[in-house]
């Protein structure tokens, strides 16, 4: 029994049906970690992107170095680092928050590039036109550049949202009860790993196929000429 649900080990089908609600409890945790990690990645990526775009090299160079370092080191090791090192400095976070933070940090390296590429993809003629219309630099950025960058940024961010979801199982190593961890516990207790692990694979496949087609739909249907900030 787990989370108040009994399993029925009569055969593979009854087992699958009886553990589905248990896996759903794990899936809920997976989705929460995905959304929180994504949010951290969006915010931290924005900060890194702004720092990388700074005029002073004293600011931009360290930001590039940090991005490269985050991108070139494994999520698992970053997670262990946060989980074991932060408490030594008096910062004790629940495993779930540590995990979401690690996901966010890892993916901030990628999202910062998405912001940068999205802004740079807006043509130079747009900046020149804004200048000819005597718009200030700030107004050019908020009313011309950003609205046109948004439709390019959103689909790319969507892809990283899907990637984050697929990386959530790594959080199981610090005792987060996400879907894969739940499936392993079921496997440990029923001596059948095949059914729960295959079900997790199947559920992931369905989720990513749905999410990717959603991202493709966004890519096609977002207005190309831009989305105003207001």
């Amino acid at each position: 029994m787990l989370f108040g649900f009994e399993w029925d080990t009569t055969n593979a089908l009854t087992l699958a049906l009886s553990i589905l609600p248990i896996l759903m409890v794990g899936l809920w945790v997976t989705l929460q970690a995905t959304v929180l990690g994504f949010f951290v990645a969006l915010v931290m990526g924005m900060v890194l992107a702004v720092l990388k775009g700074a005029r002073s090299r004293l600011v931009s160079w360290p930001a590039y170095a940090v991005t490269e370092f985050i991108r070139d080191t494994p999520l698992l090791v970053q997670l262990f680092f946060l989980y074991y090192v932060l408490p030594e400095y008096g910062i004790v976070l629940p495993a779930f928050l540590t995990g979401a933070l690690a996901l966010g940090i890892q993916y901030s390296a990628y999202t910062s590039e998405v912001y940068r590429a999205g802004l740079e993809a807006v043509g130079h003629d747009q900046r020149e036109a804004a200048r000819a219309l005597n718009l200030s630099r700030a107004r050019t950025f908020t009313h011309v550049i950003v609205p046109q960058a948004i439709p390019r940024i959103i689909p790319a961010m969507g892809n990283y949202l899907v990637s984050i979801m697929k990386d959530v199982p790594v959080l199981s190593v610090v005792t987060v009860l996400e879907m894969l961890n739940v499936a392993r516990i079921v496997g440990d207790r029923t001596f059948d790993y095949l059914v729960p692990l295959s079900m997790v694979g199947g559920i992931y496949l369905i989720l990513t196929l749905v999410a990717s087609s959603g991202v493709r739909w966004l890519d096609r249907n977002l207005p190309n000429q831009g989305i105003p900030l207001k």
Partner: protein
Amino acid sequence: MTPHWIEYLPPLIEGAWVTLQLTVFSTFLGVVMAFLFGVGKLSHNPFIRAFSVAYIEVFRGTSLLVQLFWLYFALPLTGQAIGIDLRLPPVVAGVLALGLNIGAYGAEVVRGAIQSVHPGQHEAALALNFTPRQTMLGVTIPQAVPEMMPAFGNLAVQNLKDTALVSLISLGDMTFRAEQIRNFTQDSTVIYTMLLFMYFGMALVLTAIMRLLERRVGQWRPGKG
């Protein structure tokens, strides 16, 4: 307090050797899979095409850790049910999971690069009476490879990072060794800082190698050499 970090180096370097081997073997498997299924997805044979799409979607669509656990924990049970011994040693399960996973991402890169080769090249090959096989191996792929290299470089680094996950099926890679030392000494800050920098160093070297390769195959672009 004298720094203990020098004592941690020998076991970590031993682990680094395992990490390096895993990266090399699984990247090699990944490249083979990428070309097989990347070309397969463009095949005219509907069965080959469907099989390639299924492989790519399954391995890209499910999490690497799920795949690793499935190969290590669930596959032996399947084997038991049908009477074959499918128990994999951790190193085989690790290389298989990593290679199959990265191969699925690589297959999409290969497909994209092949489709980016100018159609005039195919027409020219047809006019010269090349067989489809000759066209693919002698004309299309050599021109597509330089296009694949930047993406392959990113995937190789991704693969290096992913090898850390095999420590979870008790393979003695760099992360596994670091965990052992931490259990023993509780010196988390030093060990994990060292571990992060060792991965970073390996990734920088790997990136440099991929850049060299990229420059080398860049000569295969049409109009050069």
